[in-house]
């Protein structure tokens, strides 16, 4: 398998704090790659660098062979990278259906298309697709509800649907099951497994080891801004460094 994402020597400091330090990571196409690590390790910062929210001080990032750094967030998304944020980012005062139709439009129409005369309701194929995705994540009954009333777990699933409808090549998930009940977490695992079959590469940040070990093909461990280990789930489970930095420390 070819590498879809290559991160080379990325550094990022906030004032005196070194949030990322000589970070290198390669993600294989089609893989589910988990990044684990204690709170404040720099996991979200790394994703922020990938989607254009933050600009790293040094380093390069290649996505499907194309440089990513220095591009606008919308350009990066149009390249095929979608992201679920750690705190749900959705269109709070629009309906669920609108929330999913908008990313579908962005995918079909590109970054800008001036269509003040075309009714949204005339775009039957987009609406149908949006309804399918809402069904997949189990939110179809609430399609005409305004999102601000959703629970945190539902918002997360909605955000996942917003990413899935774009058929991204790479999906970045920042703690997709945080705030979900056990049952919802299991549903999400099933859902993520299902979309795994569609060949979407996933980078998933997660504290919940149950989720990590049921999904990941590879795991990288980030601690204090740098990767200290990488391997298959079995290798990581047995790695004493990881035990010390993370599994043993935070979750003892």
């Amino acid at each position: 398998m070819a590498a879809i994402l290559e991160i080379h020597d990325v550094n990022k400091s906030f004032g005196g704090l070194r949030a990322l330090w000589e970070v290198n990571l390669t993600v294989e196409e089609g893989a589910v790659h988990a990044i684990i690590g204690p709170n404040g390790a720099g996991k979200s910062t790394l994703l922020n660098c990938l989607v254009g929210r933050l600009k790293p001080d040094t380093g390069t990032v290649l996505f499907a062979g194309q440089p990513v750094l220095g591009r606008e967030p919308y350009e990066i998304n149009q390249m095929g990278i979608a992201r679920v944020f750690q705190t749900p980012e959705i269109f709070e005062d629009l309906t669920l259906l609108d929330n999913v139709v908008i990313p579908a439009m962005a995918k079909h129409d590109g970054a800008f298309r001036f269509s003040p005369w075309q009714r949204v309701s005339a775009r039957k194929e987009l609406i149908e697709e949006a309804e399918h995705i809402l069904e997949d994540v189990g939110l179809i009954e609430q399609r005409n509800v305004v999102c601000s009333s959703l629970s945190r777990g539902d918002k997360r699933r909605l955000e996942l649907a917003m990413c899935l409808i774009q058929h991204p090549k790479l999906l970045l998930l920042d703690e997709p099951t945080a705030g979900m009940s056990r049952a919802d977490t299991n549903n999400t695992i099933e859902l993520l497994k299902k979309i795994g079959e569609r060949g979407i590469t996933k980078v998933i940040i997660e504290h919940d080891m149950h989720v990590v070990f049921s999904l990941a093909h590879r795991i990288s461990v980030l601690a204090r801004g740098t990767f200290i280990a990488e391997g298959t789930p079995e290798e990581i489970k047995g790695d004493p460094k990881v035990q010390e930095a993370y599994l043993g420390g935070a979750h003892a």
Partner: protein
Amino acid sequence: MFGKSSRQDWIFFLVFSAFVLTMPVTLAPLGAGYPDLLQKFAIYGLFAIGFNILFGLTGYLSFGHAAFLGVGSYAAVWMFKLLSMNVLPAVVVAVVVAGIFAAAIGYVSLRRSGIYFSILTLAFAQMSYNLAYSVLTPITNGETGLQVRQLATGPVKNLLDQDIRVLDQAFGVVEHGVPTTSLFGIEMSGWPGFYFCAAMLIAGFFIAMRISRSNFGMMLRAIKSNQNRLKYTGVNTRPYLLSAFIISGMYAGLAGALLAVTDPLAGAERMQWTASGEVVLMTILGGAGTLLGPVLGAGVIKYFENIFSAINENVLHQLFAFLPDPVENAVVAVAGMFVGEGWHLTLGLLFMLIVIFLPGGLMEGFNRILGLFRRGRSEEDGAASGADKEA
């Protein structure tokens, strides 16, 4: 928002049009059935509809939209002076010029959002206002204002005082004294003037309705809701915002042109910040983000301005004559603070009450009342859809 079928939209639009066209009759009992005031309803209604496309849909609060109103008026009067007293070229050119002006101001102002955007637009409008009084007097005629004059006889030395109206001349239109605006011979003052403005309002309303239901409108709403998310969703928000800004500037230009159509005179006071503030009040009072709200807000404010300010002590004494004298005097003294010069006080209080109790404006009030009726009638299909908000 998919709740509204295109058929429902048509019905809504037809009811709106019918109401606008029958305003001379329906609003007569309120004392508003005369052309001058109804023209203002239509003109400021358009101004507010356009403003709402920017503010109501994207959430970007411009504090300088009066600049486009002023530019529209100047452009229209210039067309009356140079081309023809026919209103069509004036209206078209005013809309185009205001659009270009909006493109320039919008391009710069939209580099910022929130309060900084508002301040940038305010600064541009104040700059235009001051320029109109100073450097640009050869175009604006400064404090006197730009006016339609008699046709030049002999060589033209000063276009401010001598008009040429090349189109009218070419078509051999005969003028007696200072000419009046017209639409192919129909004089654009009084009732015909109102019906022309009403037709523009109806057209403007239709376009705004289509925009609101469109892909473009949906993106604008998404910008208001969560611009960040939209960027990570692959949308370049800047051109969307700029388009909305230009469209709303063109509406303001149209309103400015219509002011010149009904009274062919343009002055810089139209660009003053109070005028920019007024359209913000209209939109919020009626209900930002709704289709009908801005028109309603414009109507209410113009009504207060014209009717309440015209009420004086004598009228109040007549009104309360049935009360015993001392009581009458006291009541008139109190009520007197709210009318005449004091109409601003009434408006201010009304505005405060609305913002505190009905943040969604008058439209929220109507929808709540409608909701009560509906719930009363049928509990089962009471899935009160969010689409109601859009009416």
